[in-house]
C-alpha cells in the first residue's frame, strides 16, 4: 500500500509521548494498592485455570491415541473370540458324522450276525410296504 509507505516515510513509528521518570517502576505497586485484597486471591486462582486448560489441550493427542489403542485391542479381542467359536463347530459336525458312521457299522455287524444277505433285507423291506 503506497499510502502506508508514505505515512511511514513521514512519521515513522516514533513514539512522541513520554512519561515521568520511573513511572513504570512504580506502576505495578500503584495498581496493586488500589485493588482489594480478596480480589488478588481470586485472581491467582483464575490465573491457574487458563494454565490448566492449556495443559489439558496439550494432552489431547495422548487421549486420542489411548482411545484408538483401546478400540484396537477390543476389536482384536472380539475377532479372536469369534474366530475361536467357528473353529469349534467343525468338531461338533465331525462328531455327528462319527455317530452316523458308528450306527452304520453297527447295522452291518447286526446283519452279519443274523446271517441275512442283501436280497433277504430288500425282501423284508418290500414286505412291510
Amino acid at each position: 500500500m503506497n499510502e502506508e509507505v508514505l505515512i511511514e516515510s513521514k512519521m515513522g513509528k516514533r513514539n512522541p509521548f513520554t512519561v515521568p521518570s520511573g513511572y513504570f517502576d512504580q506502576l505495578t505497586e500503584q495498581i496493586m494498592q488500589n485493588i482489594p485484597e480478596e480480589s488478588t486471591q481470586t485472581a491467582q486462582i483464575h490465573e491457574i485455570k487458563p494454565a490448566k486448560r492449556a495443559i489439558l489441550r496439550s494432552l489431547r493427542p495422548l487421549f486420542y491415541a489411548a482411545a484408538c489403542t483401546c478400540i484396537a485391542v477390543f476389536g482384536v479381542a472380539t475377532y479372536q473370540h469369534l474366530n475361536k467359536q467357528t473353529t469349534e463347530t467343525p468338531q461338533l459336525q465331525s462328531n455327528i458324522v462319527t455317530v452316523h458312521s458308528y450306527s452304520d457299522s453297527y447295522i452291518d455287524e447286526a446283519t452279519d450276525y443274523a446271517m441275512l444277505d442283501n436280497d433277504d433285507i430288500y425282501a423284508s423291506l418290500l414286505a412291510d410296504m
Partner: protein
Amino acid sequence: MMVRQYSEQLYWQVRRIVLTHEDSNDVLQNAFMKAWTSLDTFKGDSKLFTWLSRIAINEALDFTRKQKKHPLQSTDDEELGLANQLMADNYFDGDETEAQLQEAIAQLPDVQKTVFMLRYYDEMKYSEISKILGTSEGGLKASYHIAVKKISEFFKRND
C-alpha cells in the same frame, strides 16, 4: 504478575487514544480495577492480554467520548486545539507536525482510530485486533485502509 507483565503495553495502548499522561494513568487504573473485579468472566477462550486490551481500550474510548460531551478544559484551551495542547504538554516530545498528526488521528471514528493504532504502532495481527474490538477481520481491514487514506491526505495537505 499479570499487572507487572502487561501494564506497560496496556498503558501505551491507552495513551495513544487518551493522549495525556495523567488521564492515561487514571484510565489504566480503572481498567485494571475492572479486570480484577470481572476476572470470573474470563473464560480462557482468548489470550489474557487480548482480554485485558479489550477492557483497557474500551475504558479509553469511553473516557474520550465523555470528554467530548463534557469537556473539562477551559474555553482558552478549546480554542487552542488539540495539536497546540499537545505542544504545551510536558510529556509530549514531538514537533508541530507530529502534534497535528495526533490531532488528525484523534478525529478518526473510534474503530478506525483504534485499528490504526494497534496495526501501525503495535503491528498486531488482524485476528488479534478482531478479538479485542469484536469486529470482523474484513471490517477491520476496511477501517484500516480508510484510516491510512485519511492520514496520508493529512500529510499531502500539510506538505
